[in-house]
Structures are given as structure tokens and as C-alpha cells.
């Protein structure tokens, strides 16, 4: 079987201009007058958004694409969907391509919901007969059937989004490109759409390329994942391995933060020098299994005598939800007047508290009463948690999707009462 997508030595070069990408005619005219007097030409900076990409994607594969912002993920999809041409190399695409780089592309507020389904559907590559066939299913799926003959301008933004998603979920090309579009809208409806896409993809062997920042969605949806960085393919393999590599590449350094000169609070004479994550053995790591205790150590220096303050951390998950905040209410010296010197504080995040995911930590030194923040470094440390099935966690041996912001291991009692 030939690959559905065959990419060879593909590259895309962009010219960086300091101003807007298009030109104003007046600049050309005034520029040419200026150039008569000075011959020095402005240098244009060029950079490769994609460089020497080689990929084979087989029919029926569902492939996630991850990488930092600017890694080239969207450019790759834009080239495959022919929105922009490559500078070098080639790609062979076997099958009809449907691209979903934005939901609701071409929606017009003056047209009714029904009319917009036809317009949007045909923009996304559906034939009129296909839309006719699917119309009832699309309307039904969207849940806005009451307003389907009302102009779109009277819809709430949520309703517009549902309608757009419904059209998208009913696309049936052999190759579907999805770029982050499912990051907006309400979670339940997103899930419904992903479910629908997964269903048809399994049934018809559809090839899907899926760009997302949400590791959970990628994990659930794509068995294979590609990691891009600075326009190059870093790895392609099982989603779990690729995500681990992504975390290792981009988050490892965040297990430790050093401030060479210290973050100084002038009013109180405290200076924050270092913060790092470690396990119970004191090893500096950024990946913890969910049952492990996570140590957060803060090292700082007190520069004058008789200072009183306390330490705290804030923990956020990858959706940027503040899971909890904690400040020192237990240590001996927290209420004492400090003398000059170096100190360290360790906070232990218990095991069996957090689910799998990526978390970030902010560090603070502050006066509790009245509250006066001396030093607050936002989201300077980050780590990932994973499930270790060899240990007892709240998962037990259930391996599938397990939602929830926290995941404590509860004590259950069960007994026969009659």
C-alpha cells in the first residue's frame, strides 16, 4: 500500500519583514526617491519555517503533530492543504484532502443557518449532493434546529460554533487536517465531535493529521505522533514516547530555576536564588509518577536581620487552572525573626493527588498579615506526571480516559450488611 501522504525534502522559507507582509505602493514610490540619494539597501532577513521534512503517512493513520509555537506545525498543514506552496521539495497526497484550520470559515452573518451549512460545506470541499445527504444529520448534531432558518447574525457565538463544528464533524475526505480548531468551544461538544471523527476514521480508514497543544486530546485521538522543533522533524513514533520526548526537550530545564543575581526584595532584604523539583531521594527530576511525592525546594538569602516572612507556591495544570495554593503554616522558623544568611524551604506535594498531565509552579515569598508579596516568580518550574501501573493509584488498573482535576486515592469501605 502506498502512503497517503509522502513528503520529500520539503522546505518553506519566509522573508521576515519588520513591517507588514504586503507593501504600500506609496512606500515603493517614496522608497525609490529615497534610494536615489542613498544606495544602501535594507537587508531582508530570511528564515526556514520548515526544513528538509521527510514523512510517510499511511492510509488510515491518525497522527498527532506537537511542538512549541513557531515549530512549523501549522505551516506543514498549510502546505499539505495547498494554501501556501513549499520553497523546496515535494509532497504527494493520495486522496481528497479536507482541511479544518478554522471552524466556520466563510460563515456569513446575513445568511441563515441552513444556507451557511451549504456555503461552509462547499468551502470545506463537500459536494452539494453530499451536503444534501448529510443535511439532516448536521442540523441534528448541532442542536440548533429551531433556528436553522434564522440569519446567523441572530445566533449566539456558542450556537455559531456548534453549527460550525457539526459541518466539520461530517466532512468525509480521505485525508483530514485539523489544526487546533477544537481548542475552542465547550468541552462536551468538542468531545462529541472528536468521537464522531474517530468513529468515521475507524470505519472508513481515514487518515487524520491533528495539530494540538493539548496532550490529552492527542493521547486519546492519535496512536502516532510527530514532534516538530524549529522546522524539523525531531521524532515520529508512538504518542507516549513522542510526548515524553517533547516534555524532556522543552520542560526538563524547568525542573530547576537559578537566579544568578537573585530576585531581590528591596523593602525586606530577601533574595530568591534557586528553586527546583526533586523526589524523596533528592534527585532533581521533572517526571514523577502520580503516586510519588514531589518536593519543591526554594533557596533564598536573607540580607538583613529581624525579617519575618513566609514561603508559598501556586500549582497550575496545563489548562492553566490553579489547582491549589499553599504557604508555610507548619515550619518552626516561619514566625521567627530571621538573621542574615542562606535558607531553604521544602514543600512536599503528596503522591496520589494529581492526575497525569503537565503542571507548572509559581514561587512566592511574602508577609502573610497584612499580605505583602516580596517576591513572586510566575510558573517558573514545571513537571509532568505519568501513571505507573505497578503502583496502586486511584486508577487501579483502568487504563482509559480518566478525567478530573485532582485524583486522590480515597479510602473505600465496603461490607455486606445483610
Amino acid at each position, binding site marked *: 500500500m502506498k502512503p497517503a501522504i509522502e513528503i520529500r525534502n520539503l522546505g518553506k522559507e519566509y522573508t521576515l519583514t519588520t513591517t*507588514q*507582509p504586503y507593501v504600500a505602493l506609496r512606500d515603493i514610490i517614496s522608497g525609490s526617491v529615497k534610494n536615489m540619494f542613498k544606495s544602501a539597501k535594507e537587508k531582508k532577513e530570511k528564515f526556514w519555517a520548515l526544513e528538509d521534512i521527510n514523512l510517510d503517512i499511511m492510509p488510515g493513520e491518525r497522527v498527532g503533530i506537537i511542538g512549541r509555537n513557531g515549530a512549523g506545525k501549522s505551516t506543514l498543514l498549510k502546505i499539505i492543504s495547498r494554501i501556501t*506552496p513549499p*520553497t523546496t521539495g515535494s*509532497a*504527494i*497526497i493520495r486522496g481528497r484532502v479536507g482541511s479544518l484550520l478554522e471552524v466556520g*470559515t466563510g460563515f456569513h452573518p446575513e*445568511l441563515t443557518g441552513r444556507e451557511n451549512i451549504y*456555503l461552509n460545506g462547499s468551502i470545506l470541499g463537500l459536494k452539494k449532493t453530499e451536503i444534501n445527504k448529510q443535511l439532516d444529520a448536521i442540523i441534528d448534531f448541532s442542536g440548533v434546529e429551531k433556528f436553522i432558518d434564522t440569519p446567523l447574525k441572530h445566533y449566539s457565538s456558542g450556537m455559531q460554533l456548534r453549527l460550525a463544528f457539526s459541518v466539520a464533524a461530517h466532512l468525509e475526505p480521505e485525508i483530514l487536517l485539523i489544526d487546533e480548531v477544537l481548542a475552542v468551544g465547550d468541552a462536551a461538544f468538542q468531545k462529541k465531535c472528536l468521537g464522531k471523527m474517530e468513529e468515521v476514521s475507524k470505519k472508513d480508514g481515514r487518515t487524520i493529521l491533528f495539530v494540538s497543544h493539548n496532550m490529552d486530546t492527542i493521547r486519546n485521538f492519535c496512536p502516532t505522533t510527530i514532534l516538530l522543533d524549529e522546522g524539523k522533524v525531531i521524532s515520529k513514533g508512538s504518542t507516549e514516547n513522542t510526548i515524553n520526548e517533547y516534555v524532556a526537550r522543552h520542560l526538563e530545564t524547568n525542573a530547576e530555576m537559578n537566579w544568578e543575581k537573585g530576585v531581590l526584595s528591596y523593602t525586606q532584604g530577601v533574595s530568591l536564588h534557586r528553586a527546583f523539583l526533586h523526589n524523596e531521594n533528592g534527585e532533581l527530576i521533572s517526571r514523577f509518577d502520580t503516586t510519588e511525592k514531589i518536593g519543591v525546594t526554594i533557596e533564598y538569602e536573607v540580607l538583613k536581620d529581624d525579617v519575618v516572612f513566609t514561603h508559598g507556591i501556586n500549582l497550575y495544570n496545563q489548562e492553566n487552572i490553579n489547582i491549589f495554593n499553599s504557604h508555610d503554616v507548619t515550619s518552626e522558623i516561619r514566625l521567627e525573626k530571621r538573621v542574615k544568611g542562606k535558607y531553604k524551604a521544602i514543600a512536599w506535594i503528596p503522591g496520589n493527588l494529581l492526575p497525569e498531565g503537565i503542571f507548572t509552579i509559581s514561587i512566592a515569598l511574602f508577609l502573610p498579615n497584612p499580605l505583602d508579596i516580596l517576591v513572586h516568580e510566575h510558573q517558573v518550574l514545571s513537571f509532568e506526571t505519568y501513571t505507573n501501573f505497578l503502583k496502586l493509584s486511584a486508577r487501579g488498573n483502568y487504563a482509559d480516559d480518566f478525567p478530573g482535576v485532582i485524583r486522590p486515592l480515597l479510602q473505600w469501605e465496603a461490607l455486606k450488611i445483610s
Partner: protein
Amino acid sequence: MEKFTTNIHPPSGFSLGLKELWQYRELFYFFTWRDIKVKYKQTYLGILWALLQPLGMMLIFTFLFSKTWKIDTTPVQYPIFVLAGLILWNLFSSSVSHAGESMIQNANIIKKIYFPRLIIPGSSLLVAFFDFLMGLLLFLIFCVIYKQPVHWSAVYYFPAAIFIIVVAAFGAGTFLAALNVKYRDFRYTIAFMLQVLFFASQVFYPMQYIQQSWLKYVLAANPVNTAIGLFRAPLSGSPVDATFLGIGMASTILILLIGLYYFRKTEAFFADLA
């Protein structure tokens, strides 16, 4: 499945991409359908507007140039004479100005979805053509009212005139559309250039009023003049000058080639620029 195989390469060479245009004919239809629908939904008078606009212009020009300044257009009565010019001019000017703006207006779609880009200026042209059909209806009604004799040669003169306008407008429209993407302030000059061209077209005056022979040759290169000349021939019964017709046709073809070539050459990068 094999029949949908696509090869993606850096842009090279030149082709019209007619085959692909045909594959996307439904999208062409939907864009046109959207533009017509939206246009008439937004106006209170709806489709009547397409009739009222040329009617109003005809009344004003008749009052100014027939009653006040006495322009002589015998054997054709002035209202018929000017209406024939106006509907063709409107077809040209609204096609060119809408097609010229079309790429910018649809920038958000261009950046997100691939389709042959010629569809966009093409469908703006069809929207203008729809208005023209309304105008043509008005013109035929007035021919009946004024008992204007129409020679049977109209069967090929009328379509030929309309065809020349459409071809020239498509060439100029695609050229301006592509230019507008690259030079964003170019749009402001389109209205001005159209105004100049209006006075260089025999809309409200007959070509016989031009005295200087060199100017006649220059004006013959304006496809709108060629088209209006052809359109009025079956009304007045006067023959069409073969030299002027030749100049007009050559210039029409040249405009089409320049427009299409420039558009096709630059369209690959529209998504990067828009």
C-alpha cells in the same frame, strides 16, 4: 482513490488551471450565490435596486445631455442610446471594482482553505452580470416603449458586445485583484481610474462627436467603446468600423492575458501576503 492524487511542488511554469477550475465549479456557484443573496438581503429594495440604478442614471443623463445640451443621437432616441451605454458601462465598472476588492474581502477564507483562486474574482464578475441582466431587461422594455427598431443582426452584435465587456472586465479585475493583495493602497486608485475611463467611453456621447482622428484611435483601444459600438450598431443601422473593431479586440485580448498571467503568477503567495 488514485484519481485524487495531488503533487505539491514549489511554484513553477504557467497554466490556466482550467481542469481544476471545473472540479471546483460547485464552489464557484456557491460563492456567486452567496454574494447575490447577501447583496440583495442587505438592501431594502432588494432586487428592484438593480433596475432603479440604471433607470435613475438614464433619467439624469437624458435631462442633462438631451434636453439641456442637445446631444444629437439620431436615428436612436437619447434615452435608448444612453441606456445601452449605461448598462454595458455598469457591467464593466462594477465587475472591475468588485473583482479588484474581492481577494482582500475574502482574505480570511484564502488563508484557511485551498481552492483555485480565480473563483473569487470570477464570482464577483458573475454577481455584476446578474445585475446586468436586470439592466438588459429594462433596456428591452424601453425599446418597446420607445418603439425602437432593432435590426436582426442584434442576435450576434449584442452577445459579442457583452462578451467583450466580460472578457476585458475579467482581465482587468483579476489584474487589480492580484495587485491589491500586494500593494494594499492600490484600491484607492481604482475608483479614480474608473471615473477617467467613464469619460473616455462613449456612454453619454456618440463617437462621432470626437473631432481629432488620433484621439479616435486611442479611444478605440478602450474595450468599453468597442462593446458599446457593437451594441448600438443594430439600433442605429450604421456599420461597424473594422479598424476600430480590430484595435478594440486586440486590446481586450491583451488585457485578459496580462490580467490572467499576473494573477496566476502571484496567486500561490496570496495566503502568505493577505
